[in-house]
């Protein structure tokens, strides 16, 4: 081990596996073995580096280089050129943001990683080995919490940090914990919401695949703060790799005494289990998620009572998003004040975005809150791939569609709220002029129509009406009053639907109307006449016969 001079880190995540990362990794190992370099060069699996369309990625440490778009043919050349002769293989060298070499000092590491907090280890450590997480200050926050702090102090520290829920709604995390902590019950629960169903969002997946222990540590800290001894991670059934990696992480943490009984010599016990989802968008809503965890249809519950009082199994439950929990360990390690100093005052810290669509470098980025859309497109996304900026959708399908006017608004919860928008889950979909707004709107509504759970009447029927209207707009045969009716129905849903799912279509519809009124009106056929609707029961029956 001591003679190892080169580490090759291969990113194994959902995106790179598609491009054949596992085969390339085996090929590296074989080639290195063939040349007898096994002692000097070590091949390690790691999580995502960020870029999502650069094929198979391999980082070489300590040189701090990243090769992208690797093929089988490149492997022997890289081994021969770079590892044997020490010459960089220029052909596959990746430009843009790449993970720099790992310095020993934690401060330097943070600044070098562009202030990465949540993703500090993604693409640097082997997510399947707890030793590597521990070596990078892992479980230090939990240790400090359990040996030096009371639960109230932990909650105060989170409140000081100003951390807000990263699932989309942006509710202050400290406050949420403070609701749950004083409630007396025989048992309480911490639930990690990893039912990431919002189209265009895959940050939670890459966090779990790249640094699963961070999530576990965050959950354990939360458990200590609110007095819960059990944690559950509800993961989408489609996320096989995340499930495997989290499962392995849980087993290792148990073996190393980071989960289990009497952690760090205290009286605190904490265990984590995985629950697998089965494909329902509405289960991202916390009460629907709890219903689903109880083995029922994932229908949202009436609030109040909030889960903090009556949650899983009818007991006090705290539900947090993966990214929120992944922020917790570093806050405990470095203090709430330090965290508060990052980003904007209203939304401290960083935000993980998934940037997609017609840009040069789609992928995962973590940036301080408050950067603008223009900066994200040009600096992180490498500019537009083709054509010019037409529109962007923030926060997934349930998010606002923005026009070019909004390119310079800082992205944080408060600044966006001031101009009437929400930040949402972190997906940023950039579109050029090839995308027709009316087609796009119809695709969004088709999605909502499919995912409406059917519990409440406004959503069950409203989504169908909206899907039909947007369908007519798409086909250019909408009635004259359709644009108005569409807004009316959307606003009616917003005010009357039972859960956030039903309230969602108002976001894309109303914002699209705000910025692209002309384009929507192009879908109206002035000659079209709406067929007469049956006025009463008798007419309905007659129409049916």
């Amino acid at each position, binding site marked *: 081990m001591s003679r190892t001079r080169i580490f090759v880190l291969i990113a194994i995540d*959902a995106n790179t596996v598609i491009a054949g990362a596992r085969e390339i990794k085996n090929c590296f190992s074989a080639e290195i073995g063939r040349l007898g370099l096994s002692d000097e060069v070590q091949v390690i699996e790691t999580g995502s580096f960020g870029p999502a369309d650069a094929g198979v990625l391999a980082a070489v440490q300590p040189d701090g280089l990243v090769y992208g778009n690797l093929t089988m043919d490149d492997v022997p050349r890289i081994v021969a050129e770079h590892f044997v002769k020490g010459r960089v293989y220029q052909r596959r060298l990746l430009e843009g943001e790449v993970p720099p070499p790992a310095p020993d000092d934690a401060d330097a590491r943070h600044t070098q990683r562009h202030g990465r907090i949540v993703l500090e280890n993604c693409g640097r450590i082997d997510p399947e080995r707890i030793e590597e997480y521990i070596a990078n200050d892992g479980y230090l926050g939990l240790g400090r919490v359990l040996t030096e702090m009371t639960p109230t102090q932990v909650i105060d520290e989170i409140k000081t940090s100003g951390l807000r829920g990263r699932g989309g709604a942006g509710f202050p995390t400290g406050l949420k914990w403070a609701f749950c902590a004083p409630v007396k019950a025989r048992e309480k629960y911490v639930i990690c919401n990893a039912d990431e169903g919002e189209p265009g969002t*895959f940050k939670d997946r890459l966090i779990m695949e790249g640094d699963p222990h961070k999530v576990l540590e965050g959950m354990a800290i939360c458990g200590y703060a609110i007095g819960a001894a059990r944690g559950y991670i509800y993961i989408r059934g489609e996320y*096989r790799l995340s499930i495997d990696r989290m499962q392995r992480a849980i087993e290792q943490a148990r073996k190393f005494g980071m989960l289990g009984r009497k952690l760090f010599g205290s009286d605190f016990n904490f265990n984590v289990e995985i629950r697998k989802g*089965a494909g329902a968008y509405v289960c991202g809503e916390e009460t629907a998620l709890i219903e689903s965890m109880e083995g*029922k249809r994932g229908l949202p519950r009436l609030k109040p009572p909030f889960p903090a009082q009556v949650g899983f199994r009818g007991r006090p439950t705290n539900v947090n998003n993966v990214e929120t929990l992944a922020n917790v360990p570093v806050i405990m390690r470095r203090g709430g004040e330090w965290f508060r100093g990052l980003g904007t005052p209203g939304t401290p810290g960083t935000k993980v975005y998934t940037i997609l*669509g017609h840009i040069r470098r789609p992928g995962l980025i973590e940036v301080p809150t408050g950067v603008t859309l223009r900066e994200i497109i040009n600096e992180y996304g490498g500019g537009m791939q083709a054509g010019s900026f037409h529109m962007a959708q923030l926060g997934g399908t349930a998010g606002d569609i923005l026009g070019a006017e909004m390119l310079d608004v800082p992205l944080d919860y408060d600044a966006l709220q001031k101009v009437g928008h929400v930040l949402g889950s972190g997906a940023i979909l950039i*579109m050029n002029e090839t995308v027709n707004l009316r087609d796009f709107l119809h695709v969004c509504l088709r*999605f909502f129509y499919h995912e409406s759970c059917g519990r409440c009447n406004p959503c069950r029927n409203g989504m169908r009406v909206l899907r039909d209207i947007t369908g007519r707009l798409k086909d250019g045969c909408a009635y004259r009053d359709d644009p108005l009716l569409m807004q009316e129905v959307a606003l009616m849903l917003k005010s009357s639907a039972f859960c956030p799912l039903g309230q969602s279509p108002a976001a894309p519809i109303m914002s699209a109307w705000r910025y692209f009124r002309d384009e929507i009106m192009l879908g109206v056929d002035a000659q079209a006449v709406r067929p007469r609707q049956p006025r009463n029961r008798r007419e309905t029956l007659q129409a049916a016969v």
Partner: protein
Amino acid sequence: MSIAEIVDKHGNHRENLLNILHDIQDFTADNSLHQNDLQQLSQIMCLPVSEIVGTASFYTMFSLQPRGRHVIRLCESPPCYIKGADNILRALEQKLGVKVGQTTQDHMFTLETTSCLGVCGVAPAMMIDEVVYGNLTEAKVKTIIDEMMRQSA
């Protein structure tokens, strides 16, 4: 694995119903939940069949209709749509000769659409059984299907 063994593995409790259903479905040849299996499950778990079917039918990953040996799930969410998922769907329908939701004559493939698979960086994407394919083109899906047909032939 028998139904009783699967229930034992997860624990005979309503909370574990989803995990149990996942396993039951994975062990069938046609990727679906069978009536008689669910009846048996209902007796073991002391739950009405209506409750079990009601729960299973709520989730898109469970099917009460027999499906093909391989389930193709094409993502139809906006990020894939703007990269041309509609063309891919047409190509798949043409190649397989079935519409969305249908199974091919030889019970090899069932074509379904799904919401976001979380690999939007390589959109358009689809999942065949456990494997995710990205950066799809019309030519590429045809090659993938051909390859799968050849392997099973």
